[in-house]
């Protein structure tokens, strides 16, 4: 008894407190509180499942199989989403189209992020003439509305990349092209954000210390400064996926994007306005899937922003 009292009495004040949370745990707590973001993440997961697990139920040749005797059939039991203008099953095409659309979104953002970080980091870190030149180019590209730039670039590069076969599936070369075009016309905002981060971070003492110990510029940029500006980059990249999927949809809708028979949610809508009245299922399902994807990514991005960077609460 006596010893027990003694034990309680000697408990250290620090031991009574819960262990401090790491930055990641704090971010996760803030993220969890953002209900819409959690729902968004869930829906997004389901959409990925739909596109990738759906492939287990339909083969790609089925998705591209056309039967003109079945053209523009309304949704029935055997074709739950109906059939398109040449009798292809729309359900199967939304599955395979979804794969392409989602992958285009992810890969385009990969390019966007690499370009944005590279330009922003170099401009912000080195400053001076390099900064001036890079920022003028960035401004020049921001000066033209994105959709115009996309159209001109798509026209410029169309047909330059041959079809390719990856893992037994043939992809239209236009898929790669669209990834490059979307990535290449959307990096400017990120570049500006990264540059602003670098401009302020490079004045810190840890950069001075790194320089004093003879660390190379490359190591300072990528190992010392970049990790400190990761929050806005992650947020911009997340929202960038939504934008890239929308861009793909716009450009394919205009017939300048991914070429059939490769389906994407965007090119399934190409020409659908001619069947507005007679076959609404033609445009409704792909359109709805794009909306759901973009919406859930936007909610997710909003949640990530709140979690990683609680100070910046913008639109």
């Amino acid at each position: 008894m006596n010893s027990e009292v003694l034990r309680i009495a000697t408990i250290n004040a620090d031991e009574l407190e819960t262990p401090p949370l790491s930055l990641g745990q704090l971010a996760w707590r803030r993220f969890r509180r953002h209900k819409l973001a959690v729902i968004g993440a869930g829906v997004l997961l389901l959409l990925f499942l739909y596109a990738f697990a759906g492939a287990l139920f339909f083969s790609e040749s089925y998705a591209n199989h056309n039967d003109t005797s079945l053209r523009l059939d309304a949704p029935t039991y055997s074709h739950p989403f109906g059939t398109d203008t040449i009798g292809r099953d729309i359900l199967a095409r939304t599955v395979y189209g979804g794969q392409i659309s989602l992958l285009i979104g992810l890969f385009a953002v990969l390019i966007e992020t690499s370009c944005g970080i590279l330009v922003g980091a170099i401009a912000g870190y080195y400053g001076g003439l390099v900064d001036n030149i890079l920022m003028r180019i960035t401004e020049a590209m921001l000066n033209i509305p994105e959709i115009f730039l996309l159209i001109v670039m798509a026209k410029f590069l169309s047909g330059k990349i041959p079809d390719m076969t990856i893992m037994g599936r043939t992809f239209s070369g236009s898929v790669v092209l669209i990834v490059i075009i979307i990535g290449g016309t959307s990096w400017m905002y990120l570049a500006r954000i990264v540059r602003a981060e670098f401009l302020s971070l490079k004045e810190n003492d840890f950069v001075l210390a790194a320089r004093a110990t003879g660390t190379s510029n490359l190591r300072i940029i990528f190992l010392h400064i970049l990790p400190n500006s990761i929050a806005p980059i992650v947020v911009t990249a997340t929202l960038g996926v939504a934008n890239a999927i929308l861009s793909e949809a716009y450009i394919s809708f205009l017939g300048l994007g991914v070429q059939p028979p490769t389906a994407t949610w965007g090119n399934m809508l190409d020409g659908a306005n001619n069947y507005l009245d007679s076959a609404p299922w033609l445009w409704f399902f792909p359109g709805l899937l794009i909306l759901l994807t973009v919406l859930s990514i936007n909610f997710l991005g909003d949640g990530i922003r709140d979690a990683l960077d609680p100070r910046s609460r913008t639109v």
Partner: protein
Amino acid sequence: MTRYIIRRFLQGIPLLFIISVVLFVLMMTMGDPIATMGGRSITRQADRVRLTRQLGLDKPLYVQYIYWLVGNDWTKVDLDGDGVAETAGTRRGILRGDFGTSLVNRGEPVLQVIWERLPNTLLLMLASEVVVVLGAFLVGIYSALRQYSAWDHFITALLFIGYSMPIFFIALLSMYIFAVLFKRWGLPYLPTVGMFDPQVGKTTGQVLLHMVLPVLSMSIVSFASYSRYIRSTMLEVLGQDYIRTAKSKGLTRQDIIFVHALKNASLPIVTVVGLDLPFLLGGAVVTERIFAWPGTGRLFLDHVARGDMPVVMGILMLISVAVIIFQIITDVVYAWLDPRIRYEA
């Protein structure tokens, strides 16, 4: 201030130069301009060679760019292909306001081609800009005054949906509901394509009726960012000391919201509108295509498809110039409205 404005204009010049060079290079594989000029008939080889020389396409790229920029009336060009430049050039270059002639509408000056379409686009775009700004003020102020209420959350969710919608999906959906379904149900329905019913003619009523759906579609997309912006600036202003002062001296709620808060909260929106305005010139490419609206956006699409480089280049350069000018105007207007802002010369 004057020095600041002059400096900004001077900075715009190298920017426009970079833009024009990049675009000019991108234009080079737009299509076969000579096939475009020939129309449906196949161009004979002899004609091809002659047209190539006439358009200056036999020249290296940088010479073509110089001719486009400053014209070629100061030099002689070789039209008959004998290697001797004998004919005086006629182009004056875009620096002297000559954007060249359209290849599709043969011989028609580019500016005239664009000018014909511009009013249609401005009509559509300005209407939707007005709808968006007015609506965004209503919604933004309402949400700000009832922050975190059920209505605020509901409005936020709706705005997010609108913001995430591809514009063609809104367009198709609204066309289906207000034109197809309304017609089926025997209700008065809206027209879907064009600017007016050819049987009735281009009357004000017809144009207004045809504008409803395109304006609706475009407004929904940009509604979210505007109203969220107003909501956040309004919230910021409502937390200021002078609002508390106004409250404590017993002003009515209306006075506080509409006179003291709104005046200051609406300042930042000037920037957003100012930076958005020049993009209206280009029109909404997708919207104009779906609703078959004869504006500059559709003009751009049609002429890109047929490789009409002078017109495409003309539209893009006009937008670029407008963007730069509007940026400067926005900054100046903002400094004029908000005396706290000073630009060093």
